[in-house]
């Protein structure tokens, strides 16, 4: 079985890289096959497509009715490309929304 482990951290104190090293040792590195740290929520952009038009807003996705349903990791040139990708995701078109968050690169 594969599982997603979703991390909710306070904005003030995300784990340091050193803390993560320790955690990875304890939890058994072998069982992970991907993961990333996201930039703070202030860097988020949300995309919704309504009537065929992509609406871009500054900030995270905040509705509570919809549930977190999945994610893509993409490697593109810049935020414009990422937002265009987001606008093609089905959830953005059928009443939901897609949040784009930059990944911390080490």
């Amino acid at each position, binding site marked *: 079985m594969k599982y997603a482990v979703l991390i909710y951290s306070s904005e003030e104190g995300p784990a340091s890289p050193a803390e993560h090293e320790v955690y990875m040792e304890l939890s058994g590195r072998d069982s992970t096959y991907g993961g990333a740290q996201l*930039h*703070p929520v*202030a*860097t*988020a*952009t949300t995309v919704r497509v309504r009537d065929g038009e*992509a609406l*871009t*807003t*500054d*900030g995270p996705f905040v509705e509570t009715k919809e549930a977190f349903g999945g994610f893509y990791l993409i490697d593109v*040139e*810049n*935020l*414009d490309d*990422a*937002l265009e990708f987001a606008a093609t995701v089905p959830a953005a078109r059928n009443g939901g929304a897609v949040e*784009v968050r*930059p990944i911390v690169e080490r």
Partner: protein
Amino acid sequence: MIDDVFRDEWGRVVANLVGFLGDFDLAEEAAQEAFAIAAERWPREGAPANPGAWLTTTARNRAIDRLRRERTFAAKAHLVAAPEAVEDEMDEQTFPDERLELLFTCCHPALALDAQVALTLRTLAGLETGEIARAFLVPEPTMAQRLVRAKKKIRAAGVPFRVPPEHLLPERLTAVLAVVYLVFNEGYGGRSDLAADAIRLGTSLTELMPDEPEAHALLALMLLHDARRDARFADGELVLLEEQDRDLYDAAKITAGRIALERALALRGRGPYALQAAIASLHADDPCDWHEIAALYAELARITASPVVELNRAVAVAETEGAEAALRLVEGLDLDGYRYFHAARAELLRRLDRLPEAHEAYRRALELTPAGPERRFLERRLAGPAT
């Protein structure tokens, strides 16, 4: 002289540095350092032949020094290693005008609209945070926070420094137009250099997007307003429209504005800027067709749902239906933090001989108005009879 160079060159220098460094804060700091060096050195040694290129070169070198000092050199080495002749003096050819790139970056839809405008005023027009805060009717720390957050997001989220490709251009234009117009308005109150900056940016936009009616309409609007600049002030004091000397209108600017308006209308422009430009064109006529102006404001209010537009409509209605009818429109508006709301209300009350109320409204307008001709105008009104 440094002041003139600052106004002329700030936006271009910062744009070039943001393009080069990919970092707004570093670009602003380096630009400030370069201007400070110029202020110290030029009066003694004379200004260089190309002040903009000198400032840009100096600022670039300062930025590189700073990167080295802060030992972030390795992290940003790719910037410094860029094939730029950074130690050489730049001439016009190697000093590209990247203000449009900067404008579209500042006006990216991943930023909130108020942050877009604020960032443009800071980086392109060189306004201080306090000036921007006043233009937005918010406290200065709020504005400072907004600027910091916007710059962080641009860097962390990867907002590109460029004019967007064709397929993204139309949707990006709305924000850019709004921003340019706000820059113009900041200048219309007195800082004519800002108005000239805005007109320059507006002209560039019409060249970049020749088929976009609202770009032509915005340029028309700015030119038609700017044409009346000399008539708006006599000996540094504010003159109301009905008392303006029409011989002082800049005929060439009115003509240029009307040509741009015709271009916008020929492209089927019926948007907010086309309507406002049409109104500005009517304002330049003698006598003004206030009925037509009121009708255009009604149309504008319908598409913008803006209380500020309603306020302007009320001013036109005062001319056609009288101050009583106008005041009824004004009283319903939620614009307590807007100085022109109180000034317009005061003027209507004055015309209706309700002088104590008029005085109270002038006082409120005065509280919201920074030092300058507009403030002195209100003070003269307040010095008039109160009963």
